[in-house]
C-alpha cells in the first residue's frame, strides 16, 4: 500500500483532481485579477480586453501547473509570451514617441531612457563611490538620473531577488523569452557538445563591464554588448563607431538569441553572455528555494542534465546532489526526471521530503511576481496589438 509518508518521500507527484487544482489556483487567481483591475477600469477597450486575457492566461497556466504537477512547459508559455510581447510594445511606444528605435545621445544624457534591470550590477560601484547613478534614464516620468522611482524599482527587485534568487531569470526577465521560444522549436539539438567553460563567460562579462562602467562612468554593457538593443532602443548611429556599436548588438542578438538556441536547444544568451544572470546567481545563495537531486533515487540517467536550458547540471553536481549556482529554477530537470529524483527543496529541510510543498511555495512567490511584472507587460503588448486589430 502506498501510504502518504511514502509518496511524500519519493517518486513523481501524480496529477491532481480538478477540484484540488482549482483550490490551489485560487490565491493566484485572486492576485491576477487584482493585478488586472487597473487595466479593466480604463476606458480603453483594447486595454480592458488585454487585461482580461492576461489574467485568464496567467490563471490557466497556473492551474495547469497545479493539475499536472509539472512546471516547465506551462511556465514556458508565459515566458515566451513575455519575451515576444515586450519588444512589440516597446518598439511601438518609441516609434510613436520619436519615430525611430534609435535614441539620440542627447536624450540619454537628459535621462530619458526607460529603466532596465540589466545594468543594475553596473550601477553599484559608481553609486557607492560617487552617489551617482550612471544609468542614463528613469523609470518614472521625472525620475531623473537619481530618481526615487528608480530607487523604488531597485528596492522591489532586491526584495524579490532575495527570495527567489536566480528564479528572476525564469519568471520576471522580459528578455529571456525569445531564446527560450527558439530553443523550444527544434525536436533535437544539432550541437550537443558545448565547451563547459563557456558557462563562465557571463562572469567575465560581468567583471569587465563593472570595471569599465566605473572607469567610463556609463553602463558599458548597454553601450557595447546588450543583444536586446536590437529589439528595443539603440544609440542613434551618427558615425562609423555608432554603426559598429549597433552592428555588435545585431550580431549578438542573431547569434545568441536566434541561431544558437535553435542549434543547441539551450538559452545561449543567458548561459554564455548575460552579466545580470551571473550577478543574479549570487542571490541563489540567499534564496531559500533550490533544486536538489535525491541521490538515493537517482540512477543517474542524466536526462535532467540534457533538459537543463542553462547547463546548470554536470556529472559532478549530480553526484553531489545539487545544481550549479547558475540554476534559474525553471523546473525542466524536475519535470524530465523519470524517477522523481530531481526535486524542489527548501533550504534547511531534508532533501526529497515533501518536495511538492517546496514547489508550491516557490511557485506562489514566483507566479505572484510573474503576474506583477510580466502580467503588466503582456497586457500592454496585447493592448498594442488589439488597438491595431480592433
Amino acid at each position: 500500500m502506498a501510504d502518504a509518508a511514502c509518496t511524500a518521500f519519493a517518486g513523481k507527484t501524480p496529477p491532481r483532481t480538478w477540484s484540488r487544482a482549482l483550490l490551489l489556483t485560487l490565491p493566484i487567481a485572486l492576485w491576477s485579477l487584482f493585478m488586472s483591475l487597473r487595466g479593466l477600469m480604463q476606458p480603453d477597450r483594447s486595454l480592458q480586453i488585454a487585461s482580461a486575457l492576461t489574467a485568464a492566461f496567467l490563471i490557466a497556466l497556473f492551474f495547469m501547473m497545479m493539475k499536472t504537477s509539472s512546471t516547465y512547459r506551462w511556465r514556458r508559455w508565459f515566458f515566451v509570451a513575455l519575451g515576444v510581447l515586450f519588444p512589440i510594445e516597446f518598439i511601438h511606444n518609441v516609434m510613436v514617441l520619436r519615430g525611430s528605435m534609435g535614441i539620440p545621445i542627447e536624450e540619454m544624457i537628459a535621462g530619458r531612457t526607460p529603466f532596465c534591470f540589466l545594468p543594475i550590477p553596473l550601477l553599484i560601484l559608481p553609486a557607492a563611490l560617487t552617489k551617482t547613478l550612471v544609468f542614463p534614464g528613469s523609470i518614472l516620468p521625472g525620475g531623473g538620473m537619481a530618481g526615487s522611482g528608480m530607487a523604488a524599482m531597485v528596492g522591489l527587485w532586491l526584495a524579490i531577488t532575495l527570495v527567489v534568487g536566480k528564479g528572476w531569470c525564469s519568471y520576471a526577465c522580459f528578455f529571456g523569452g525569445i531564446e527560450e521560444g527558439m530553443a523550444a522549436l527544434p525536436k533535437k539539438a544539432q550541437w550537443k557538445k558545448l565547451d563547459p567553460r563557456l558557462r563562465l563567460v557571463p562572469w567575465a562579462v560581468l567583471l569587465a563591464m563593472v570595471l569599465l562602467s566605473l572607469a567610463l562612468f556609463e553602463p558599458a554593457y548597454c553601450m557595447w554588448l546588450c543583444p536586446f538593443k536590437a529589439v528595443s532602443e539603440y544609440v542613434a548611429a551618427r558615425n562609423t563607431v555608432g554603426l559598429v556599436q549597433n552592428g555588435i548588438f545585431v550580431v549578438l542578438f542573431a547569434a545568441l538569441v536566434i541561431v544558437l538556441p535553435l542549434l543547441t536547444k539551450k538559452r545561449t544568451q543567458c548561459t554564455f553572455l548575460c552579466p545580470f544572470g551571473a550577478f543574479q546567481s549570487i542571490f541563489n545563495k540567499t534564496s531559500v528555494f533550490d533544486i536538489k537531486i535525491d541521490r538515493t533515487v537517482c540512477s543517474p540517467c542524466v536526462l535532467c542534465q540534457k533538459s537543463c536550458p542553462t547547463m546548470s547540471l554536470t556529472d559532478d553536481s549530480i553526484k553531489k546532489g545539487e545544481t550549479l549556482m547558475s540554476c534559474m529554477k525553471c523546473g525542466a530537470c524536475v519535470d524530465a526526471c523519470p524517477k522523481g529524483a530531481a526535486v524542489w527543496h527548501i533550504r534547511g529541510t531534508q532533501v526529497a521530503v515533501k518536495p511538492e510543498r517546496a514547489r508550491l511555495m516557490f511557485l506562489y512567490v514566483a507566479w505572484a511576481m510573474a503576474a506583477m511584472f510580466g502580467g503588466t507587460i503582456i497586457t500592454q503588448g496585447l493592448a498594442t496589438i488589439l488597438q491595431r486589430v480592433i
Partner: protein
Amino acid sequence: MGGPFLLGEAFLLGLASGPACVASCGPVVVPSLLAEGAGWRLNARYLSSFLGTRFVGYLLFAAVAWELGALVSPPPAVRTLIYGGIHVLLGVVLLWYAHSIGRVCTHACAGSGLVSIGRVGKRGVSGAAVLGLLTGVSLCPPFVAAGLRAAQLSNIAAALLFFAVFFVATTLWFVPFVGLGCVRRNASVIFVARTAMILVALYYLLAGVAMLAGRRIYG
C-alpha cells in the same frame, strides 16, 4: 622648490584623486591581477611592479611634456592622438598578456613568478610592468588635474616632485588590491580573468582606433 605647503597640496590632491585613479586603472589591474597566482606576496609583487613603472611613466611623461612646453595640456587634437595611441597599445598588451597566461607553467615545481609577456635577452618582461608604464602615460583625468597644477610651478624639478608626491598619495588607494591575493585561484577564476581581460582589450582597441581615426565614441 616646492615648500611643505606645496607638497601637502600635492598629497591632498593625490588622496582626493585616488578613487578616480583606481577607477580608471581598474579595468587593467583587476583582471590581470586575478589572472596571476594567488597569495598576497605575489600580488604585492605584481602591484609594486605595476606601480613602479606607473611612477616612471608619470615622471617620464611630465619631463618630456615640460621640455616640449606643453605640460599635460597639449592641444586637444594631440591629446586625442596620444590617448588613442595609448588605448591601442593597452589593448594589444592586454591581449598579449591574456595569451601569455595560457603558456604559464602551472606544474607544482614551477616558480611562482609574475606573468611575462615577452623576452629581453634571457629574461621575461613582467606584464604588470608594461601595463603600469602604459597607464602611467595614459593621461587619465587625475593625471591631467595634477599636470595642470604642476604646470604653474617655476621649474621642472618642482613639477616632478609635485608629481612624485601626488603619485605616492594615489598609490595608497591601490593597497587594498593586495587583498585580491586572498581570492582562491583555480582554472575557472583564471578563465574568467583572462576572458575579462580580452573584453577590456577589445574595448580599448576599438576606442583607441576610433580616437586615432578622429571619430567620437558616442553619437
